[in-house]
């Protein structure tokens, strides 16, 4: 079947099998390998992208279900003015170690801050509770998102 998905502002049309998952559409059809593919069971959250602005696990979403919709991946976080504050926060606060979970967490964090620009630490932890990290113990991830919240006055994506 033919699907057209707008990814990071650009429309892509491809012929795919109905069973193709959005994560494989992004990685294999479009070459956008920043979206990672982990547990395959919608538990770990490394495949998180934004679908119409909402964090969504792309391993449990069909490419067909994204037909006609907007997807944002980690490749679409950086704006014309440079890195998104969330990305800058992860750099400044050492929010990643192996980096496998990082794109998914950043897309979740971006959506959180768009909805709630000044979240408490509890709200940050709740928001990322569907994104597993096996390295950091989450402490620096929370600091990174806090940094982004505290430094987003100028850059709002």
């Amino acid at each position: 079947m033919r699907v057209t998905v707008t990814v990071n502002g650009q429309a892509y049309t491809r012929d795919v099998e109905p069973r193709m998952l959005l994560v494989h559409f992004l990685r294999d059809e479009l070459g956008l390998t920043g979206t990672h593919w982990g547990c395959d069971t919608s538990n770990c959250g490394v495949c998180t992208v934004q679908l119409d602005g909402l964090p969504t696990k792309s391993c449990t979403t069909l490419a067909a279900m994204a037909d006609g919709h907007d997807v944002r991946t980690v490749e679409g976080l950086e704006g014309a003015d440079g890195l998104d504050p969330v990305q800058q926060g992860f750099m400044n606060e050492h929010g990643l170690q192996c980096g496998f979970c990082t794109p998914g967490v950043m897309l979740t964090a971006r959506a959180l801050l768009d909805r709630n620009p000044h979240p408490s630490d509890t709200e940050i932890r709740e928001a990322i509770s569907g994104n597993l990290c096996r390295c950091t113990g989450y402490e620096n991830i929370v600091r990174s998102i806090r940094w982004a919240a505290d430094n987003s006055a100028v850059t709002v994506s």
Partner: protein
Amino acid sequence: MQVPAPFEYARAGSVAEAISLLEQHGEDARVIAGGHSLLPMMKLRLADPSTLIDINGLEDLTRIRVDGDVLRIGAMARHAEVLASAVVGEHFRILHDAERVIADPIVRNRGTVGGSLCHADPAEDLSAVLAALNAEVVVEGSAGQRTVAVRELADGPFTTVLAPAEIVTEVRVPIVAGAGSAYQKVHRCTGDYAVAAAGAIVWLDGDTIADAGIALAAVGAPHNVGPDTEAAIRGRVADDATLDLAATTASGECNPHTDQRGPADYKRALVGELTRRALRTAIARCRGEER
């Protein structure tokens, strides 16, 4: 790499079209809503539908509103939308308690109320809560519309009384003034199913429990409710002795199984304590003692 087996895909633009597509594609066709239960089962070949009818475009089914003395939740309302709905929280705190511990925030952006009910997983929270609230679902097919009590919707694990070409379009929860409600769940981590969970809705007449609904999830209670517990506490004073009675009765009327989430005895003990806590909070909320 886990991917579903091949299937045909069709998108419904209306409820009528969804029903007609289901009829066209035969009884191996399935409706897909959020897909967060069905797709994992398809990856594992536990489900193998020939055709998926996608109803994600049915915006009409996403509304949540109060209509007279009924809370009407569209079948395609996402868990996140139920959790964010002020009107839901105003009337049924138990629904917000439950939604807060269903899956995780990302999954809740996709998973739907109708999908949860129709998936009929005996460990699923909303099936138990909506049964305790005596909700009914509106079911549509080519022969027209009918309603089914949530307490009678599941016909066993993962099966419902729906005909192959029928779909649930709405959940209707009766609003009876003066209720207090709460839900208590023990789970191993965010996103996991309950080890055990219990919920309660109560109406007080002075200090007496005028009526009550009891939800029991993941513990082998028929239709995920506790009718014996409801009957045992009805008409009794809302005190510690009644909470004890509720705990004992609920423990006795569930039938949990030993599995990787814990031994049956432990789950049975948990049901007692969670019923006690849910009821205690529901009573406090009923009295306006906010917790």
